[in-house]
């Protein structure tokens, strides 16, 4: 089975997010980058499926040479080879089209994305990719088994879940549940050593265009200082929730 895991290179979850003074982009100064948390679940799932069914796990990302550290990490965790779409993505449509172009030339049985990337929180790429390739699509996928070329999946709904199945190839957008937190794989020494000799191929873009653009970024408004209410005076909290905030 050929599995492709689409990985996004994002600021670590503990990062303080600042923007450049012109407001045009993220200020990367002092920011650590990691594999997008949603994609980590997908990568571990891909490795488990490979162990069960045999095959190859490839990883891909779209970005300049800075993102190669993230691909190397994925190789160290156990992916067999890596691809970098050489450029700077502008929106989800452009990203999905570049990925689709690559996938059409390389054919995979299973394509695993994350539900969204924690930087721009777009959530556009997986569905757009599925439509572009005309393949079945499961969003918010929290369970995946492959039997005889059929993918049996579980997707999260609002406050519940639902089963769904489709023939391979299929595109899923995964999250926690695809594998459990404790199953997540991390690089070990041997993995880090072997990653150095694995293939990381740079792919030229096909020239897809973006359909939206960022104009500016700003910080969210600051909260007022907290009002501490004595635990002996809970009625005061109820009064404030009713009269001041009007939420009860």
């Amino acid at each position, binding site marked *: 089975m050929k599995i492709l895991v689409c990985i996004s290179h994002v600021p670590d979850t503990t990062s303080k997010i600042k923007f450049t003074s012109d407001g045009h982009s993220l200020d990367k100064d002092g920011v650590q980058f990691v594999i997008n948390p949603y994609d980590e679940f997908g990568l571990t799932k891909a490795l488990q499926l490979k162990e069960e069914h045999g095959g190859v796990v490839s990883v891909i990302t779209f970005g300049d040479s800075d993102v190669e550290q993230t691909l190397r990490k994925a190789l160290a965790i156990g992916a067999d080879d890596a691809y970098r779409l050489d450029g700077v993505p502008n*929106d989800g449509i452009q990203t999905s089209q570049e990925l689709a172009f690559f996938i059409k030339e390389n054919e995979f049985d299973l394509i695993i994305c994350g539900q969204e990337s924690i930087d721009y929180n777009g959530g556009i790429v997986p569905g757009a990719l599925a439509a572009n390739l005309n393949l079945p699509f499961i969003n918010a996928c929290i369970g995946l088994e492959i039997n005889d070329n059929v993918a049996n999946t579980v997707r999260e709904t609002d406050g519940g879940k639902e089963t769904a*199945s489709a023939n391979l190839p299929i595109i899923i957008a995964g999250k926690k549940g695809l594998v459990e937190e404790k199953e997540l794989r991390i690089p070990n020494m041997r993995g880090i050593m072997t990653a150095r000799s694995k293939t990381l191929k740079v792919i030229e873009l096909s020239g897809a265009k973006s359909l939206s653009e960022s104009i500016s970024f700003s910080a969210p408004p600051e909260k007022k200082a907290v009002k501490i209410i004595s635990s002996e005076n809970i009625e005061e909290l109820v009064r404030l929730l009713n009269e001041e905030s009007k939420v009860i």
Partner: protein
Amino acid sequence: MVIIYAETWNKKFKKTTFEAVNYGARCSKEIGTEAIAVVFGECDSHLADLGNHGADRIIHIQGIEQFEPFSFATVLSDIAKEFNGKLIIVNGTANGKSLIGVMSSLLSSSAISNVTELPVNYEPINVHRSAFSSKGIEKCSSKSNCTILGIVPNSIGIISLEDIESIIEVRNIISKGKTIFGESQNESGNVPLPEAERVVSAGRGMKGPENWGIITELAEVLNAGTACSKPVSDIGWRPHSEHVGQTGIQINPQLYIAIGISGAIQHLAGVSRSKTIVVINNDPEAPFFKAADYGIIGDAFDVVPRLTEAIKSFQK
């Protein structure tokens, strides 16, 4: 035209469906066009209720009962083409999030998700959206004729518009899905999290799953959804569907009550857009107090039952 996906759940409109219709109707007035709401499958709610929130026309699709991203996205995209759709409004629910990317590719249109306000301009469409897990606000501009907006449930609200006697049109369409959906099951309480107006959430400070009674009782009197921090769902005290935060569900209710949760940056990323935040924690140094509107420093096991009682007496 402005096209709105009028989502149903268990054959009824979700509360947030009215918010999406209202949003679409307000945009259509700004542009000087009409709002079309599209409803799929059997529906026990009154279609006319969509008119009361501003829909000029309601297209009721029969023949497609179960949600499937391709069949729904195809129908919505075809309607957008037929009516020269300028905007398509989709709620950021589980189903809505499954549609937005698929439609953007079917229509070669830009898709802007996580939108928290009405557009700032309409020529071109410029709109603010939440990014970097609520740590930033992005102003985004569409470059295509048609733009798909994914709006964050509960973030815009509903304003009353003139009641409209909508035109209702029924269409029969055969499904063109790619996946076969099976059973569906609900896990969390009565109120699904993404659309809950009030949420009661608890963390590791609760010490164990057997102590959740006081949390669900408080949620019940407030008619609130229940949520939890990530470690609580990781160790299986509560279902994954209750995990809120940067890597869980992102919510923005009117009221968020956090009990025995420290307020780690990843947790705040998913809840900081709540309108009013109440923190109950026995550690005065807990970082969550910095992000709260109201705080009570105290033991949850003492404070929470008394809060429940105080709300009950207030409600009488």
